[in-house]
């Protein structure tokens, strides 16, 4: 439905996009006892670290190969080995996840080849899981880096079965895209467990970045899915891929152990959740529990209450493709008009998006499209544009550094969708101004308000009702 356009500008102004390697690093943060490493200069890591710290308000495990001038020119493979040895010595993780950056990709380090030879030279590291992902900064975006990393984790740890293995039908794999918050993952776990299924989330940010007081200080990730859990994913009954970005990973898992998969491109909205719940009921062979039926009823009611405030509202959204798709599609279902849709990278969903145009661009583009909007929805960097335009901002996605609780925002499932209606609806309600003696005087010139002369057909309608 939408025309997908790329910005023609040379200069990105007020970026919406973040880079691939830190998307990869975030995926590694959902793996238990893991140390993510960016293979680049220390600034690459430092920027990502600060970004995540401000968003999650948590200590973030993220290391660097600290490429200096000489290593940058001559190649940074020694730095990889040194950083692995250093990390093993200091933190002794089970998994080290390495993402390349613009620096090392420009040089073209053959990291995979090097790791292979290092493995031979250093048998003492045999038990250490090392996963390398190629994520040049100058290509793709955050969401792509996240997706590639999940696929790589599967290729690294799930064994290749020659014959289809014995399946554990109650076990389901859930591949969780980066548009899901730790709160979203917890919500999905609850729903899936209601059907007697045992979900394994990959990655599982709900264990590591949900903002809990840890049992102990640890320099690596605080929780998440273990290497052993990942290895077992090849024998699960089903794979549920949440988000189009997880397709590559779902295919990888299918290739490894023949696990069939179902892809849910969004879980925000009534219909989308009906499909999801019906599917769970089917694969588990159990009826939909009372608890979930009640949540559905509550969502329906909140949609009825909320639609008065959403109808006809003009909304501009800047978000990564899967998040844009999930939230934007639902808002359109609530009667809102998406007047601006800006995203970061390509996706097959974009042309189906309910707007005239989807632009792969920046926040300057969004600001242009939001001039006459009632609401801007994007990450915290939209605050300047919102302030300039005098349009309220709903913080959506990462980074959200000027509000509390970004990790616990829930917008999936019946309950999450209901929360979203209340949060956005209340912004619209807060925007309505109390009238005073001057309100109607201005309205005579400004026909956009409620005091404008009535249209003929409206009068007819009222008469009919009477």
């Amino acid at each position, binding site marked *: 439905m939408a025309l997908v356009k790329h910005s023609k500008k040379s200069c*990105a*102004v007020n970026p919406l996009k973040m880079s691939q390697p830190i998307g990869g690093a975030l995926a590694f943060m959902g793996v238990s006892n893991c140390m993510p490493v960016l293979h680049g200069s220390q600034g690459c890591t430092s920027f990502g670290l600060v970004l995540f710290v401000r968003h999650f308000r948590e200590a973030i495990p993220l290391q660097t190969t600290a490429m200096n001038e000489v290593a940058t020119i001559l190649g940074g493979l020694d730095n990889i080995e040194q950083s*692995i040895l250093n990390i093993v010595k200091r933190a002794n993780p089970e998994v080290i996840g390495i993402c390349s950056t*613009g620096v090392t990709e420009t040089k073209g380090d053959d990291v995979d080849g090097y790791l292979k030879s290092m493995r031979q030279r250093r048998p003492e590291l045999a038990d250490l899981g090392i996963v390398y992902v190629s994520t040049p900064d*100058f290509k793709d975006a955050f969401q792509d880096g996240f997706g590639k990393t999940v696929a790589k984790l599967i290729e690294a740890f799930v064994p290749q079965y020659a014959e289809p293995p014995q399946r554990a039908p109650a076990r389901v794999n859930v591949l969780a895209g980066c548009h899901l918050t730790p709160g979203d993952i917890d919500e999905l776990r609850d729903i899936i467990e209601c059907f007697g299924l045992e979900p394994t989330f990959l990655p599982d940010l709900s264990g590591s970045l949900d903002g809990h007081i840890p049992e*102990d200080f640890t320099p690596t990730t605080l929780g998440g899915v273990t290497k052993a859990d990942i290895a077992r994913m090849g024998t699960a009954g089903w794979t549920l891929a949440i988000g189009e970005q997880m397709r590559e990973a779902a295919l990888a898992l299918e290739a490894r152990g023949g696990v069939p998969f179902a892809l849910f491109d969004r879980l925000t909205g009534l219909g989308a959740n009906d499909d999801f719940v019906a599917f769970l009921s089917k694969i588990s062979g159990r009826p939909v529990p009372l608890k979930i039926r009640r949540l559905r009823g509550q969502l329906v009611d909140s949609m009825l209450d909320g639609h008065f405030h959403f109808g006809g509202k003009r909304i501009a959204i800047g978000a990564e493709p899967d998040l844009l798709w999930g939230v934007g599609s639902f808002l359109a279902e609530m009667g809102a008009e998406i007047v601006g849709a800006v995203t970061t990278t390509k996706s097959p969903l974009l042309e189906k998006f309910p707007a005239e145009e989807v632009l792969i661009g920046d926040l300057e583009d969004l600001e242009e499209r939001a001039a006459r909007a009632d609401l801007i929805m994007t990450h915290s*960097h939209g605050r300047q544009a919102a302030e300039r335009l005098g349009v309220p901002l709903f913080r959506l996605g990462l980074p959200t550094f000027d509000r509390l609780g970004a990790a616990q925002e829930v917008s999936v499932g019946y309950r999450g969708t209901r929360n979203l209606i209340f949060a956005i609806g209340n912004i619209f309600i807060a925007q309505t101004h109390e009238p005073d003696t001057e309100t109607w005087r201005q309205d005579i010139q400004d026909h956009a308000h409620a005091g404008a002369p009535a249209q003929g057909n409206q009068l007819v309608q009222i008469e009919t009702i009477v």
Partner: protein
Amino acid sequence: MTSLANKIQDVFNEPGCGKNQGKSEKERKKGCTKQLAPGAAAGGCAFDGAKIALQPITDVAHLVHGPIACEGNSWDNRGAKSSGSRLYRTGFTTDMSENDVVFGGEKRLYKSIKEILDKYDPPAVFVYQTCVPAMTGDDIGAVCKAASAKFGKPIIPVISPGFVGPKNLGNKLAGEAILDHVIGTVEPEYTTPYDINIIGEYNLAGELWQVKPLLDELGIRILSCISGDAKYHEVASSHRARAAMMVCSKAMINVARKMEERYAIPFFEGSFYGIGDMSDSLREIARLLIERGAPAELMERTEAVIAREEARAWARIAPYKERLSGKRVLLITGGVKSWSVVAALQEAGLEIAGTSVKKSTKEDKEKIKELMGQDAHMIDDMTPREMYKMLKEARADIMLSGGRSQFIALKAKMPWLDINQERHHAYAGYEGMVELVAEIDKALYNPVWAQVRLPAPWEETSWEERATKALEAEAAALAADPERAEEARRSKKVCSCHNVNVGAIEDAARADGLGNLEAIGGATHAGTGCGGCQSKIAEILDAMSGAGAVPASKAA
């Protein structure tokens, strides 16, 4: 790249910087080839440092030439405030793609500059070099020159790609960029005998505005602040100031010193943090201006303002002093802030339980020692567990640090206050000191701490108890086993740059009877990187010579 190498060499020869002067000729030549430990490094890169130093210039466009990581992951995350233009908070980047890596990004850069000038019409554009275009060989100097000539506006190249070194080096390279291309290019409309520059002040949280009213009252004009709340033409005409104050430790010392050399502007190093420091700084400003020809009565007026403001500040702090005196503070921060904040906290009656010296220069450390006496407990690179231990043993009641280490305190259910760049409160001048004390009081006496420290009723042991037990067990094991204790003592790291521990230094000293820094450096490389650990090596050698392990003549 050769010219960049020369620049770095030049910066490393900085005579105003004690740290560089402490190194031998050979070490200085090595410049910043010091390898940070891969897998064990934290902190920003040279690009980050350059951006921090110049971004507070408010009315210019700051354009980052590089892939999305450099600007997209980091933009708009500093609290430098502006009284006018907001353009400095707009993120501009060329967002290089694969094509630019392969075919070169110069055209895209040139077009980006043109788009910015067309749309935003800034007085100048600062173009920042980053790692990838530096590697592929984009000549941003040439692009800036061509764009300047074509569009008739200054386009300033800032050559400080991330891989050349740490943040501090980037600060200095940024200073070099404005020395080369900005300062002295515009004449001020008029000058007065009361014109000063403030160098290294970034107006974080509006701190400059806590100081400026007093300067206004004295008739002292800030001709240019470099770079907090600065406008381009102010920096460009800053060469006509009569005197300068250098605020942020060594971050921009090259700017202050070279302006003295080129334009005969004398400078002093001072701080706006703490009542005593603030008064000293006002006096120094007045003194330098009078030396340069301002009427001597300026000093009388300055003393009158100082007396009035000090009395007012003390009166406002007095009610807190009683509540805060004896409370212990753990201060984890770098460089300038360590010693300047120490003075401020002592004025409020607080005790310093410890302070980190991670980014401080040798001189900084000496200043801390001077201020806190011999029991200054300075902590190099504390690990999270050690920080917890320190907080836990009731040796600290509150932690003051940057945003990154806050969670150690908060997870330990310990009051915490942000004093780094991302903070929201301004702590400069007399006003700021009162604010800082009020904030510490607020954090310490918040009733929430009593609540969160109660364990859940169903929990048998808390993680704090388990951590304490583990720490006790460790200590007991060491005490019971002198061999392990000795091993632990010997394995303590001395030189972070080259990863050399106490044992290696002692062995080197013993093996060959080596007794001085140079010889130890030759044998183990210890102390030949940043030079920050040389005093520790000297202490080890002193201790050994005292114990008679090395002939005293050689230990000198």
